[in-house]
């Protein structure tokens, strides 16, 4: 770790968000340290993805603040949000590749739009990122020709192509077979170490969480109810967390 890895890069305070009558987040407080790999666990539909979208400014909170490098991003105008997002990369649950573009065009699009480089230089950078995810041979393929795992890997290459400070992963292993899930988990870890980035991983896959996380948090009923290292989480006596990591229907959390 070097100097840039000190202190929190994102601080969330009193974050509330509701959709119609449904209150999704009811006061989230969370600090995310530079260069750490933070996992946000929680049941499906508990608001994990909403939290990611709030952090990136894709949606606005009803109340609360999100400080990115000391500035409240909830007050940013559109241009400042775009400037902030240049420091972010995101791997979407469905990979969200642009299906009218080839893999090379998908990964290279942020460079084409924001970096003054020649086509050849951009191609080199794209190939380098595709090499990181082991997919140089699909450069000219369209997303429709790729498997789910390959799409996620291309999405990962696109997320890191601008060498962002923070990479956000929305359910990175959902819908993948266990072997491919492990490939993705390993890549998340490797990218974090190679590029010195902060990772925020939202998942309900507990195995994946233990593989990628430096710190584990749990979102439940709109609040962060737990934060600790993977080891601490394994030994926790928090009943809600225990029920979740052991995958039990019986416990304080009603299954249905």
């Amino acid at each position, binding site marked *: 770790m070097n100097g840039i890895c000190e202190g929190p890069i994102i601080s969330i305070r009193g974050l509330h968000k509701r959709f119609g009558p449904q209150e999704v987040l009811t006061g989230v407080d969370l600090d995310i340290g530079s260069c750490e790999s933070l996992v946000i666990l929680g049941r499906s539909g508990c608001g994990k993805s909403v939290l990611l979208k709030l952090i990136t400014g894709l949606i606005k909170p009803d109340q609360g603040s999100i400080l990115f490098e000391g500035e409240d991003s909830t007050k940013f105008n559109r241009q400042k949000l775009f400037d902030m997002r240049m420091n972010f990369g995101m791997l979407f649950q469905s990979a969200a*590749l*642009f299906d009218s573009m080839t893999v090379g065009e998908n990964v290279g699009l942020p460079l084409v739009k924001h970096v003054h480089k020649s086509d050849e230089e951009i191609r080199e950078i794209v190939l380098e990122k595709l090499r990181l995810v082991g997919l140089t041979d699909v450069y000219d393929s369209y997303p429709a020709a790729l498997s789910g795992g390959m799409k996620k890997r291309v999405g990962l290459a696109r997320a890191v192509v601008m060498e962002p400070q923070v990479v956000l992963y929305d359910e990175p292993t959902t819908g993948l077979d266990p072997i491919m899930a492990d490939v993705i988990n390993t890549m998340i870890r490797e990218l974090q170490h190679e590029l010195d980035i902060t990772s925020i991983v939202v998942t309900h896959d507990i195995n994946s969480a233990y593989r990628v996380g430096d710190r584990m948090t749990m979102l439940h009923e709109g609040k962060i109810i737990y934060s600790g290292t993977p080891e601490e989480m394994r030994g926790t006596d928090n009943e809600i967390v225990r029920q979740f990591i052991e995958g039990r229907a019986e416990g304080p959390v009603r299954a249905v």
Partner: protein
Amino acid sequence: MKIFAMLGRFFLGFIEEIGGMFLLLWRVIQLAPRLFRNIGNILIQMEKIGIGSIPLVLITSVFVGAVASVQAAYQFQGYIPLRFLGAVVGKSVTLEVGPVLTALVVGGRVSAAIAAEVGTMKVTEQIDAMEMIAIDPVEYLVLPRLVAATLMLPVLTVFADFLALVGGMVVARLAVGVSFSTFEDGLTMFFRYQDLVGGLLKTFVFGFIIAFMGCYNGFRTKGGAEGVGMSTMKAVVSSCLLILITNYLLAFLIFSVIFAPD
């Protein structure tokens, strides 16, 4: 009470839709100076919207011209000499049938295609992905489609007007027995350039409506496949309705105010 609640919901929904449209329109106006950065994308859309619609416009126009000839000749029987057939077909094609019918058939094709494409991008998080890589979806998706449709619909209408007149002329010769020269004489007899220009002026607005309603409904898509289907339907219905309503308003403005007969 239920009826009042329903009416209230309908009214609020209507206001929300209008507000959403104006917000998108305002964003488009704000981004208009960036038009020239997107020339490549605009050309691609012009090809998709313009060249891609030619077969549909070709078939529609020829048959519309043909039926205009047959119907006019039928209504002339015993009252009006057939040498005026070209005048009536020409006037109806350049003033109304050419612009409006082209807008309706191209609108069905193009606004549905845009709404389905943008809607699918919305539900598969591609729009969010675009935002995340700091690309404005309105600049990248809406602006090029709006410009392309606004510029291409008049071109398609010129093409449609010409084909409809040819269709009308051929049918007049084959089915009604009016020679090409008689039809042509009729065509030029009452021709005013304002008819053609006025008809084409309307199509700039129709082209804008087609792309705008496609994009707007695409951006409003919620849910999955059903949501995309719903947006596509709304885009087609709303663009067709708006074309018909603005056609009346524009016809009034252009032919009763701007090109008012002396």
